[in-house]
């Protein structure tokens, strides 16, 4: 049987973590499933978890009056959903909804924050990984904003 520690270790987010840190991570982890269309979290709610996607696809959405939910980004297998658990005031900035049946590992952010306060090396490893994801998403968002496929006179 696959242990939670093994599942966490197999995810790209955990690549390069040592055994002690993997154990600490797994201690804050649980398996979760989302049915298609199920909402994982909503903007403004407390952000106490983040997700390592194992299978399926989640949409990060923003609700705008008269436009409904706008799909900003999709996150799939091998990717990470959510970093608001790491940054005060620990509230989600967007909605997240499964657009197909999705399996993930939920990591309890509160638990990880407490462990990181005691183990600064773990905190550094987590921040390093989240910073990398933030950089990739920022670059992607900048490209999206350029509206590259429009014809520019």
């Amino acid at each position, binding site marked *: 049987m696959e242990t939670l520690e093994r599942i966490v270790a197999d995810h790209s987010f955990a690549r390069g973590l040592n055994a002690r840190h993997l154990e600490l991570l797994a201690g804050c982890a649980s398996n979760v499933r989302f049915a298609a269309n199920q909402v994982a979290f909503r903007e403004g709610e407390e952000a106490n978890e983040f997700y390592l996607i194992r299978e399926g696809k989640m949409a990060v959405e923003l609700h705008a009056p008269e436009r409904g*939910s706008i799909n*900003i*980004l*999709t996150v799939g297998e091998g990717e990470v959903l959510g970093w608001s658990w790491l940054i005060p005031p620990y509230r989600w900035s967007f909605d997240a909804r499964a657009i197909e049946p999705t399996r993930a590992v939920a990591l309890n952010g509160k638990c990880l924050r407490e462990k990181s306060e005691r183990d600064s090396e773990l905190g550094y490893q987590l921040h390093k990984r989240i910073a990398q994801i933030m950089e990739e998403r920022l670059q*992607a968002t900048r*490209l999206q904003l*350029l509206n*590259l*496929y429009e014809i520019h006179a």
Partner: protein
Amino acid sequence: MLEAPRVPASPHPMVPQPWCVRRSWWETEDTFSFSMEPHHGSPTFQFSPGQFNMLYVFGVGEIPISISGDQAKGETLVHTVRAVGATTRAIGSLQPGAQLGVRGPFGSSWPVRQAMGKDLVIVAGGIGLAPLRPVVYEVLASRPKFGRVCLLYGTRTPDDILYTKELQKWSKGADLQTLVTVDRAGQDWTGNVGVVTTLIAKAEFDPDHASAMVCGPEVMMRFTIRELEKLGMRSDNIHISMERNMKCAVGFCGHCQFGPTFICKDGPIFRYDRIRHLLAIREM
């Protein structure tokens, strides 16, 4: 090395040959494809993936358009055009049987044969899929000669996706890993949302043993190359299609001069390591 350009079929490269529109169809709200056949007595020609023709709407204007059809489909030529100006709109309004002047085929081509025996990553943005579609046809026609092949395609919205039926067919088969993403979408879209570079991490290929062919807006190509190089792909294994204002198509007029090269006759397909220094010069 790029595959050698084929010699234009016209007796003189500056003299358009009459071809007739066979049929045309809209791919999206602003982009259409159309097929042509040679007017009685006009010579037909072979082309290589990535090459383009100069299409002349009599009395309106002449523009360079990449060939988007299948070389194996006999004597018809297919082009895909985004209707954004006077000439492209005029082409879009041509009825079956209407005549069009054709000069070509011109330019260098995608190095499909050199990619054999390796993995192949095809990355297209927007209408950049059109000049890459003949590559897909050639690859699928000789599929066992290639390793893993992935087609990564990004566009604005789900409504802007070109060749929808073919993409669906390719994504269901095992021959081609086909990944599509859009920059923005509503709740009814169940595919990927994000720029095309986000698909690179999902593509299955060995960067040490792969070729890449990239076509799209220049900024998109730059960021795509950055991601490919991050994975360890060598710049001499990456080819891109450049676009500049082409007029004569044979290197006489200089409109498409790009440093010491002319996009029309030395390109439009270039090996990335040979022009990367030119891409860094902002004045060009």
